[in-house]
């Protein structure tokens, strides 16, 4: 479906606000389903999402366990003598946190269904200053580069005979600390090169710039935006009230 990026941005904002306000696993699960259906409509490959989420599985599990243990509750499931370890309330609190994260991540996937250029364009046409829009989108693009750089350095260290799985933890921490500096340093060099390239191509040469493409809100966009805002407003009112 061809929607204006701004319509999608509004949808992401609505879903995220609901995810922050809802506080029960059941509601959040419903919201997650709705989000997944939306992604499906925008012909987003669900396998790709699974790929994105894979590195966070451990983190989410960890969060779930921590939340379950540290949220107090009366209905105890597991206890160690007089100290209650896990309660039903705790498990529910853990599930809430993890589901909330999942909903927000899934909603953010909608951003990847349009290019960063359209993202900038959308923001600019809503009177966000171009520099800020450009900065945000470039920063988003820079994150994967940072990750790649780290991966390169970790690969190189294995090529120098260090089997990271066999190195004891203490030594590993020392090694990681040493690796941080070159990674940061090289990313700064990259950023500088990018800045020179921008300078060489007249970035901010004039206070006003022109745009090759214009985004135009279609009737369907207005409908989607209004509907999203209305539904979200009603849902929030009903939930609070």
């Amino acid at each position, binding site marked *: 479906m061809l929607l204006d990026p701004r319509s999608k941005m509004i949808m992401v904002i609505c879903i995220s606000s609901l995810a922050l306000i809802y506080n029960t696993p059941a509601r959040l699960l419903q919201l997650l389903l709705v989000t997944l259906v939306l992604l499906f409509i925008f012909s987003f490959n669900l396998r790709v999402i699974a790929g994105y989420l894979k590195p966070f599985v451990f983190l989410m599990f960890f969060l779930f366990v921590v939340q379950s243990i540290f949220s107090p509750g009366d209905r105890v499931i597991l206890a160690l003598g007089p100290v209650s370890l896990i309660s039903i309330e705790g498990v529910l609190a853990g599930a809430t946190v993890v589901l909330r994260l999942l909903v927000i991540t899934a909603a953010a996937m909608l951003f990847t269904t349009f*290019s*960063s*250029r359209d993202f900038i364009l959308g923001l600019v046409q809503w009177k966000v200053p171009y520099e800020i829009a450009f900065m945000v989108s*470039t920063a988003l693009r820079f994150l994967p580069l940072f990750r790649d750089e780290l991966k*390169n*350095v970790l*690969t*190189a*260290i*294995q*090529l*120098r*005979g*260090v*089997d*990271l*799985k*066999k190195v004891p933890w203490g030594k590993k921490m020392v090694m990681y600390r*040493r*690796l941080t*500096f*070159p990674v940061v*340093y*090289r990313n700064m060099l*990259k950023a500088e*090169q*990018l*800045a*020179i*390239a*921008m*300078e*060489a*191509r*007249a*970035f*901010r*040469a*004039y206070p*006003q*710039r*022109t*745009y*090759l*493409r*214009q985004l135009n809100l279609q009737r369907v966009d207005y409908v989607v935006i209004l509907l999203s805002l209305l539904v979200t407003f009603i849902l929030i009112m009903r939930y609070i009230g």
Partner: protein
Amino acid sequence: MSYSYPDEKEPALKKINLTLNEGEFVLLSGVSGCGKTTLLRAIAGLVPDFHGGHLAGAIYLDRIPLTRIPHRQRLLKTGIVFQEAERQLLMNTVEAEIAFALENLGFPPALIKRRIMEVAAALDLTDCLPQATATLSGGQKQKVVLASILAWEPEILLLDEPTSQLDPVAAEQILNSIRRLNEDSGLTVILAEQRLERCFHLADRVLVMKNGAIACDEQSFDKLSHWAVKNETSCLPPVARLFAGCAFSKIPASIKEGRGVLRSLAPQGDFSPSFSAASPGLGNKLDAERSFEQPVVEVEKVWFRYPEGKEVLKDISFNLKAGEFAVLMGPNGAGKSTILKNLNGLLRPGRGKIKICGRDSKGVPVAELANSIAYLSQNPDDYLFLPTVREEVKFSLQYLAGKDDIDSRSDQVLQRFGLCRLAQLNPRDLSSGERQKVALAAVLASEPRVLLLDEPTRGLDYRHKEELGRILLEMQAEGTAILMVSHDVEFVAEYAAKVIFITDGSLLCSGSKYDMLSSSTFYSPQVTKVFRGIAQGIVTLEQAQELLQRILYHRQEAIPRLAGNAGTGEK
């Protein structure tokens, strides 16, 4: 004009006086760190505006001092393209990339569209306009960067080693399009380049820089070559060096001229048979001796594909014996680097078998394989993270080669690579050529049986190349098997022994460099091209010089006979 960067004592440019005329194609050469890049930046106004520092003297564009031209007008006049296309792409799609600068300059959308269309047609990019830049090949990416600059029709185009990342075919395409623009639209071009063989014949004028000053500035090629013979032959391309070495008074600049000279010396006759009889290839003899040995690297019918991608390697098989020096050549994206990564375990073949030193590499961790197989990636900087050069070497010895007498052994390694002088310095403060040497020392410290190199000559000037070649030959003589990926035909011709051509993931053909390079159109060194049709199998400069001297000798003998017996012709 002089310039120093902030926090640097030594000025990067020293008292440069230079007048460039409209429509000139100027080649800027010199070893790395001589100030080529800084001079280009100064003309573009990036120095001192962007980088800071102090500029003494003045630069004039059309007789107006650069400092007095408003920023925007200056931008419109000059365009600058840097070395790595990858780091200059700012947008997702090709069209957006080309439009970016035009939008910044406030061109109306209709004009932007027309300019994109024109520049894309000129550089043969029309079909890729809607594509994402990430999917393009290296050559196409560099073309897109070039297009994004040319789109606003600058008067002066500044290019900082634009082809250093490209295979010979892609490089030739780019340089030819630049030359055409220079001829057709009067665009002034200033090109800084290390690989002179690629662009020497295109230039109207050559500047040689040395230590931040201009050492030679010649429009006539004869004068330049005479200067070069006296001072530094390295600023001449191989074809000119060949003739300069044999004390010719008029030295040809291009292959075409060189062939003309040769033809006049040896109007007929094939000189190759007697030549190959005169010096039986050293490589062949070694090959015969080694044919009984067990290969150290065996690749058997290897297939590979990236997850959710198409097959990158298709049924690749080859062997590598101890003391062999082989090179993988082929276009960008053919799968050459992927082969190296399959060998050292960073990637694992989908089907097929890889044996290192007779042992199947399947299931052996990368770190363990690294004991017998050293690998230097395209980014030597990845390897360097310790505070001194000595510690880098010691680190490798500690992990790769056990724990005894590390200190004395690291001294040996440092000495061998000529790094003693730099041992206490931080690798980050070294030049790129020196950093590469440190990384090489670090991976080779454990004396592995196999060495894999991915584009090691990229961005190296001739001094570092010669040193690298010397080190590699030493390793080879000690029995290390070397497998290198390279686009640098001249380097391969000079130092390697065996060439393997890869296209589109398949092994096209392989053989000794004499057979492979002399029968190729693009992947052949200049001396081979010069002797094509006159003598076959000429690959190295030394061979060529020997042959040329023999031709001259024959001719001297022939002249008296000719004078006495005009009808018989030459031998």
